[in-house]
């Protein structure tokens, strides 16, 4: 380690800055290379290596934070998410290696489309890293926009009518969301410019936070409405969610995992950034009720929709909407404990849901279909997959010993006494969701075996790794993570 450290120090003089550079430049360069290299094997190895390096850089970042700068920064809020992001990106790239190979073998992807896929994957990672690292609200917007565009590319990569349809829907709804978010960003700039003066300073989030108490509250209020609806579109909050199930169902499963595990998380993270600015201004209308409202609507809508799904990926896509709703509810309720619970929930959902999609990806490939009615008895025909899926579903449904249980426990115990009726609505939603998921699980994993069973190689390591992490998190959280989240939770108001 010391040798590498020395090397990095020699390279940039500061380990943290070096890590940030690696996180941003790495994926971008890889994406560029991928557009040139068409050999699948090289692309796979290169992609996984790049993501591994990014993950290493994210780990370095945990210990060495670079100095603040008005474009990029690393603080308590994004540091854990950067590490999470890099980790899930790495495991997903491992998963996607086998997945894409299979897709090429059965002819759903050709050389060109898989090349595009690999390049866009790295592009998406770059934009997500940028979104997380950005200290500039304009940069954040650009990053999210880029992430959307790259994701659209990958959703439509199969070139089938439903895939194009899904990509198109995603593109249009995403564009409108982007427009709304931009308008909100401009309004924030207006509010900031009259206080801190024109120029780049007025777009730096850290500057905004320190001067927020002098901003015009009306502008901030209106801005937040636009930002919430705009970025909320990307986060999949109801009623802006319409793109999400289609995009999840029609894209390649590794992308589904990344969408659910990372993209919607980063969008919610951006909303949090703005919420922190609002929280620092005592005169604004509290944004809490708005987020609670959207959160609860999302939870109820998504849980009820769970009953109406015939496609396994859409099913879990709606579950993602539900969990974003839960997180939004948590941040809307506010207070150190609920905010903490919300942050934890984001992390846990990301890990768990990507694990579920890993399992689902394997299952859809061995069964050759995404139809729930044709996928039955997986626990018997493919024990590891079946049990992995079962554990993942139990985890996402909030049952111990998994981490989601902890976040839901914290959330409900912290909020029930404050808002019994609202929390009861949330609890109802959770129970309905459990009912739906379990109903499907019963058939998918434990039903009578039916249908084909195709050959599929590929590693179960990502699935198992995620499940172990979620399990450990249910029992023990590392103290630094707790300290960061507690600090952020206090700032979130």
């Amino acid at each position: 380690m010391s040798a590498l450290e020395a090397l990095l120090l020699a390279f940039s003089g500061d380990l943290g800055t070096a890590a940030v550079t690696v996180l941003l430049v790495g994926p971008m360069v890889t994406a560029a290379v991928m557009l040139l290299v068409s050999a699948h094997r090289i692309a796979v190895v290169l992609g996984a290596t790049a993501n591994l390096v990014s993950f290493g850089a994210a780990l370095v970042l945990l210990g060495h934070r670079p100095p603040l700068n008005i474009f990029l920064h690393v603080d308590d809020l994004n540091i854990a998410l950067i590490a999470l992001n890099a980790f899930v990106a790495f495991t997903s790239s491992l998963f996607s290696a086998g997945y894409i190979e299979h897709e090429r073998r059965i002819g759903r992807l050709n050389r060109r489309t898989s090349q595009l896929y690999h390049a866009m994957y790295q592009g998406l990672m770059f934009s997500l890293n940028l979104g997380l690292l950005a200290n500039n609200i304009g940069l954040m917007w650009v990053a999210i926009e880029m992430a959307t565009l790259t994701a659209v590319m990958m959703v439509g990569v199969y070139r089938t009518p439903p895939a194009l349809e899904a990509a198109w829907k995603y593109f249009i709804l995403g564009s409108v969301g982007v427009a709304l978010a931009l308008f909100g960003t401009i309004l924030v700039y207006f509010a900031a410019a009259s206080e801190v003066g024109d120029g780049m300073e007025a777009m730096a989030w850290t500057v905004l936070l320190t001067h927020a108490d002098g901003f015009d509250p009306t502008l901030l209020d209106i801005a937040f409405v636009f930002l919430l609806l705009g970025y909320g579109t990307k986060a999949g909050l109801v009623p802006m969610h319409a793109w999400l199930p289609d995009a999840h169902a029609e894209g390649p499963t590794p992308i589904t995992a990344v969408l659910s595990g990372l993209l919607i998380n980063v969008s919610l993270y951006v909303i949090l950034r703005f919420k922190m600015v609002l929280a620092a201004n005592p005169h604004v209308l509290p944004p809490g009720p708005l987020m609670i409202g959207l959160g609860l609507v999302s939870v109820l809508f998504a849980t009820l929709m769970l009953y109406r799904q015939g496609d396994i990926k859409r099913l879990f896509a709606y579950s993602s909407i539900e969990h974003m709703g839960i997180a939004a509810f948590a941040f809307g309720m506010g207070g150190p404990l609920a905010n903490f619970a919300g942050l934890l929930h984001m992390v846990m959902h990301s890990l768990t849901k990507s694990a579920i999609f890993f399992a689902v990806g394997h299952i859809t490939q061995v069964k050759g279909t995404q139809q729930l009615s044709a996928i039955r008895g997986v626990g018997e025909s493919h024990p590891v997959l079946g049990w992995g899926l079962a554990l993942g579903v139990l985890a996402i449904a909030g049952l111990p010993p998994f981490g989601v249980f902890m976040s839901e426990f914290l959330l409900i115990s912290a909020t029930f006494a404050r808002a019994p009726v609202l929390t009861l609505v949330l609890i109802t939603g959770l129970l309905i969701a459990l009912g739906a998921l379990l109903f499907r699980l019963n058939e998918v994993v434990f039903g009578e075996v039916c249908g084909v069973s195709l050959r599929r190689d590929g590693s179960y390591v990502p699935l198992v790794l995620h499940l172990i992490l979620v399990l450990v998190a249910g029992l023990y959280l590392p103290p630094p993570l707790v300290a960061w989240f507690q600090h952020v939770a206090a700032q979130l108001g």
Partner: protein
Amino acid sequence: MFLPFVLCLVPFLFAAGLLVTPVASRSWASFALYGVCLGVTCLLLAVGVLGLAAAGEGAPPQLMRLPLGLPGAGVGFRLDSLSAFFLIVVNFAASAASLFAIGYGRHEHAPGRVLPFYPVFLAGMNLVVVANDAYSFLFSWELMSVASWFLVIAHHRERENRRAGYVYLIMAAISTQALLITFGLLSDFGRVLDFEAIRTSPHAVDIARLAVLAAVIGTGAKAGLVPLHVWLPLAHPAAPSHVSGLMSGIMTKVAIYGLVRIVFDLLGPPEWTWGAGILFLGGITAVVGVLYALMQHDLKRLLAYHTVENIGIIAIGLGLALAFRANGFALGAALALTAALFHVLNHSLFKSLLFFGAGAVLTATGERDLERLGGLIRGMPVTAFCFLVGSAAISALPPLNGFVSEWLALQAILISPELPQWILKFLVPMVGAGLALSAALAAACFVKAFGIAFLGRARTVAAERAVETDRTSQAAMLILVAACVLAGLFPGMVVDALAPVVTMLVGSHLPVQSSNPWLTLVASTPERSSYNGLVLMVFIALSALLPALGIYGLASRKLRRAGAWDCGYPETSSATQYTAASFAQPIRRVFASVVFSASEQIDMPLPGDARPARLTLGMKDPVWTVLYRPLVETVNAAAAVVGRARTLSIRQHLSLVYAVLILLLVVLALWQ
């Protein structure tokens, strides 16, 4: 000093579950795993006994904290007299189940689906009773549910079992969420999750009431209080029999532990309304549970419904204890609580025993349906004997243990006219009548269960050919039989052992029994009431021996075998015997026509018609029709309404977003 042992032993169970997973299908795996479980539970039992003994001598509760779980708070554990008592209850039955399973588990055709989860289930139950903060409590609580859910769907190929698992896990989740609400209410907005702190902090009246309501729903859903019992008769029979025994015998008791811990311990001084509510539910549960049981002809389901009844009896005791305590009648509270806890112990013993018996029958014949059994007493004498003792005990017949707790509960009811509240004055005698009714119906039910399954003539070939179960299974059942008999003959010892628990919870206890002459059990004062199972047993034995000796010595001792008399019209077909359904017919007519809207349709073909006559029984479960079906239908209807959103076009979705935007802006404009 004993608590660390518990925490050291429990990981062994987890490890056993983990290690057995890859080798579960080997023949020795089941033997090894159940052996380990037996050893660990025996040790845990010893810890419980030592802990209770220490508490009896006035030792303070032991506390421990591990840096796991929730950030900042850690995981707290506590071993006090209540925990120790429940450790004993849990681990005694658990060790018996493990012993039973050493033999029984060999017949398991899906060992990979049972072995890994069995020790986790045991560990979960053990952790619940020593948990000392809301997080670890609920964590272990839910762990117990999830592990047992896996066991319920172990034989997942049967659709019935999958449905059972589904209903079970949903109800378990409802239970957890309700308890989460309880803790949410008590924890000062989630800040105080430690039981020690919850116990000492004051709670507002309304908050406490809501918390009790949520706690009753939460623990009731797990214990099987009507109307939250629906999962229980589905899930318990679905699991392998030793697990059914654990689920019915001790998991429901762990739920009772939760109720006692929250309502008696954490919430501080009770209100009488809590007691009235629990009492009412208990009364309903006791009667409805046994009526359900009478209508069943699936042996394990019948037993499961009986669990519902017994939970009702326990709840009656707990409710009375709360009512007494709220009114400051320390002795009454102690009496009622002792009755309830005694019944907890009893039920864990005889319900495990009965399920083991059912399991032995199941392995010997492959049948759970009473209508396809019969005459097993000849092929399986030991099992029959054990099942008979269990049946007698659960039917509250003296001198066995079931009678003692029932007797104590009735004694508690008899001192309740002192309670000043009018509602209680009306409620308590009603509940008393319900208790008496349920005891009488339980006897009828077990006459049916034992009589149809073990007596008479075999109704199928499988029943005809049944052979006795293996030795270890027999040993497990015989141990439980001995425990039932001993607890019935020496109830004073159990009551004395319960004294520290009762003192901790209601501040008073029954008079010390060990100093009574002839080991008599005295509820309050000897003038008022007393009971001596031992003397009674001796009397019965003597008075049976006396005429036997007399007749054998002075009159005839000859015995001839001949065909059955049957009023001179013996029928050779075993189908002419009374069946479970026909046995229950009078009671069905009396009770079930009202409660279950039972109907009988007779299809009698005309003379010359060759088709057989048919009697069709129709039965509706009121709880399903009134409570759950509408619930399910509401969710389905709502899902259908929401599902229409699926058909919206992109433009319509955009309009929706736009509408929200405009709405929010309008709100903002109005607000300013």
